[in-house]
């Protein structure tokens, strides 16, 4: 992996290296260490941005193109975004065709630096006709993402390797613990309970990794009044698959959800986050929080009523 | 059309009609009087026509007599007669003739004080209603809808309702308005029958020839009482002239009546 800096940066780096040689001498004269430059990273969406922040720590200054609660599929770059990419030291993308607009954006910005593909090396699952890009829904993949990012940051800012390695190590440890915990909690539920009906289609990796079955409600229309046939279909589907819970979101009438849940003996679950973080200070404002929230919501939904206990 | 039959014996004899006393009666709308300080007496069993120019307050007098309207001054004494002792024939204009009701239902309303809200009609009451219909020449019409009737036929139905009410005092508000002569003649016979039964009948009318022919007493009203007494005297030319002179329009510049302040009750 070669890096290319523009001329001015190369010059300043050479100056720094030169100064590094004088350091011991300077250290005698002044007690302050030299300030290392911060790496400007642009991540394509909020989840990646959060991971880069965690892995890079103070060594990086990260911004996301698609912010919290925003939809990467309908994103349209603004001129400010184009400028940010142009001035970035590093661009991080998910890959697996999650960002259909990234190639054009890079081209138009004139950015000639490295584009890190966070999902590199991961064998994708299928979704519809192509690859399922939501690889981060499995914490094992999350750890792979973190490792890939660490490698990229180290290559881009080797002088800060100590910090980066320390940050990454801590982050990876937390992720490993979360992975363990998730596995054990879900395994504690009998397989017959691990079925939920949800209109989210982004949980393929979660399903595969932890043994939860996500069932898409057939023929569900969003927004206004559903027909009796639609409701009947979902109830029948729930009965046939013996699903435990219903986590459908864009329904305007909560009473209808309640009715369906009663009829089909489903628990009504909370909200799941899939493609973006939520606003800072809310339940899913970091990747770790997002994952914890989803696991908590799913486990509670799948736990039989009366058996709930706080975690 | 059947000949007029006498009402059946199933109708009970009414209680004796009382003396009706009107004392200093004023009925006003928007501070203009329709009836202005009228005082008169209606003897029990009398048959009186109330006549006068348009706007003379004739209907308002009936309204005050029946208690539909509150007087501004004075009062009406009915000698202890209960509300249901007053039979009332309204003008058709206040009634929704297209309403989906049957003829018999409307006639049965006359027995409202006995039926109330919930009670069903007894066979005797039903017979009385059929008899009333026969008396007004509408035998066989009981299952028709009122929306299918002509104006004359509907007027007969209203008369039949009054018959059902079997009241000692009967008020008729323009009973022969826009009715054909045949119906008018039939119904006039009914009115006279009431008179022979001893009921007090007070009728607002326009046709002076009819009044002269059938009504022994007349009250000539032109907001104030112009004349009241036997018809021939009350309808003397000088009285008629005085009544005509009364302005039909309300006078916006008329002085406030001093008597109203002093005697309002």
């Amino acid at each position, binding site marked *: 992996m070669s890096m290319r800096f523009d001329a001015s940066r190369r010059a300043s780096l050479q100056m720094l290296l030169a100064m590094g040689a004088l350091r011991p001498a300077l250290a005698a004269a002044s007690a302050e260490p030299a300030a290392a430059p911060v790496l400007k990273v642009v991540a394509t969406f909020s989840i990646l941005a959060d991971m880069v922040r965690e892995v890079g720590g103070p060594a990086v200054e990260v911004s996301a193109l698609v912010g919290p609660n925003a939809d990467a599929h309908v994103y349209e770059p603004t001129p400010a975004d184009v400028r940010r990419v142009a001035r970035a030291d590093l661009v991080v993308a998910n890959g697996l065709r999650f960002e259909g607009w990234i190639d054009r954006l890079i081209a138009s910005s004139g950015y000639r630096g490295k584009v890190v593909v966070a999902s590199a090396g991961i064998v994708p699952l299928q979704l519809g006709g192509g690859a399922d890009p939501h690889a981060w829904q499995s914490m094992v993949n999350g750890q792979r993402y973190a490792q890939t990012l660490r490698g990229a940051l180290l290559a881009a800012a080797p002088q800060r390797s100590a910090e980066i390695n320390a940050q990454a190590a801590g982050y990876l440890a937390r992720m490993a613990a979360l992975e363990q915990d998730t596995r054990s909690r879900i395994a504690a539920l009998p397989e017959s309970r691990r079925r939920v009906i949800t209109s989210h289609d982004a949980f393929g990796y979660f399903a595969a990794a932890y043994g939860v079955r996500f069932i898409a409600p057939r*023929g569900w229309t969003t927004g*206004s*009044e*559903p*027909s*009796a*046939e*639609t*409701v*009947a279909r979902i*109830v029948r589907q729930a009965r046939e698959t013996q699903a435990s819970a219903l986590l459908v979101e864009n329904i*305007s*009438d909560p*009473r*209808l959800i*309640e*009715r*369906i849940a*009663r*009829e089909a003996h489903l628990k009504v679950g909370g909200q799941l986050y899939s493609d973006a973080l939520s606003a800072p200070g809310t339940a899913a404002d970091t990747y770790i929080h997002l994952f914890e929230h989803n696991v908590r919501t799913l486990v509670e939904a799948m736990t039989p009523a009366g058996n709930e206990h706080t975690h | 059309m059947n000949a007029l039959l006498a009402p059946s014996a199933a109708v009970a004899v009414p209680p004796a009609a009382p003396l009706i006393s009107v004392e200093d009666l004023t009925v006003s709308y928007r501070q203009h009087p329709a009836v202005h300080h009228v005082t008169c007496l209606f003897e029990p069993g009398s048959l009186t026509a109330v006549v006068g120019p348009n706007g003379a307050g004739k209907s308002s007098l009936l309204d005050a007599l*029946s*208690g*539909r309207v509150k007087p501004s001054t004075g009062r009406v004494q009915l000698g202890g007669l209960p*509300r*249901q002792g*007053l039979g*009332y024939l*309204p003008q058709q204009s*206040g*009634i*929704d003739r297209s*309403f*989906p*009701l*049957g003829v018999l*239902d*409307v006639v049965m*309303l006359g027995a*409202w*004080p006995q*039926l109330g*809200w*919930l009670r069903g009609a007894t066979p005797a009451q039903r017979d009385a209603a059929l008899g009333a219909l026969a008396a007004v020449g509408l035998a066989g019409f009981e299952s028709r*809808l009122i929306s299918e009737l002509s104006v004359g036929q509907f007027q007969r139905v209203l008369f039949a309702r009054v018959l059902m009410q079997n009241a000692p005092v009967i008020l008729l508000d323009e009973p022969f308005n826009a009715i054909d002569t045949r119906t008018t003649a039939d119904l006039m016979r009914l009115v006279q029958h009431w008179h022979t039964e001893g009921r007090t009948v007070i009728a607002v009318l326009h046709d002076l020839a009819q009044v002269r022919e059938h009504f022994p007493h007349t009250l000539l009203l032109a907001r104030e009482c112009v004349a009241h007494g036997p018809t021939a005297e009350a309808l003397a030319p000088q009285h008629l002239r005085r009544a005509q002179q009364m302005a039909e329009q309300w006078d916006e510049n008329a002085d406030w009546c001093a008597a109203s302040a002093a005697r309002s009750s």
Partner: protein
Amino acid sequence: MTLHELLIQPFVEFGFMRRALVACVALGLSCGPIGTLLVLRRMSLVGDAIAHALLPGAALAFVMFGYSLWAMSVGGFVAAVAVAGLAGLVARLTPQREDASFAAFYLIALAGGVMIISMRGSSVDLMRVLFGTVLAVDDASLLLIAGIASVSLLVLAVVYRPLVVECFDPGFLRHLGHAGAWVHGLFLMLLVLNLVGGFQALGTLMAVGLMMLPATAARFWAAEVWSLAAVAALIAVLSGWGGLLLSYHANLPSGPAIVMLAGSFYVLSLLLGSRDSLLARQRSQRTHRKA
């Protein structure tokens, strides 16, 4: 598909279909007579007016208690009662006609509601909370509707006579000294109760639709008040049952399906009814009796 599978089986298999059917039947039975009387009193557009009259009450409740379904429903009901009561009173005591006074008061209420909401600075669609859908009828709503229907039918049976007379010849009752006014007031309260209950459980379209369409269609089949009411109730119940089946078999949204079916009954009645329909008029032109 057998007839049983077509007409009965969906209700056997699914609880939500059964509940929806019960709600339609209950509402249809009480709305039949009430709708008939509304049509006779020329108050046919009042249903929609009342739907809007709910707003200031719901808005005030929102301001005071936040997003609470019960507070807002009660607030809406009180506001609707106030509008109906004031309109009725004004029509009684002044020469103003009832449809005009209704229009005046519901518009005042609507404007007041919008003002309260905008002063609060929130653009949240409050009314959504107050209006349900027939497929989502839960136990509480079902009890509410069944209760309202029972009470309405009972009260109507008792005040039927004075109510009808009050419509037909208002002077008559007045002359007898009976206060026809408060019977009419009672009728207005029943109207608001049925409408608000209907809104809560079934939504505005369905509640007003089931109240007015069968009543207007009945005109072409029946001649007297009581038979009009009975035909209206029957048409309402059939529309509910048929509409639910349409929603089930043809994948149509439930509320509109039921109301459209009621509307089709209306058009059919208009064209082919046994009394004064276009077909009946055609026929009566051609032949007549001798006397």
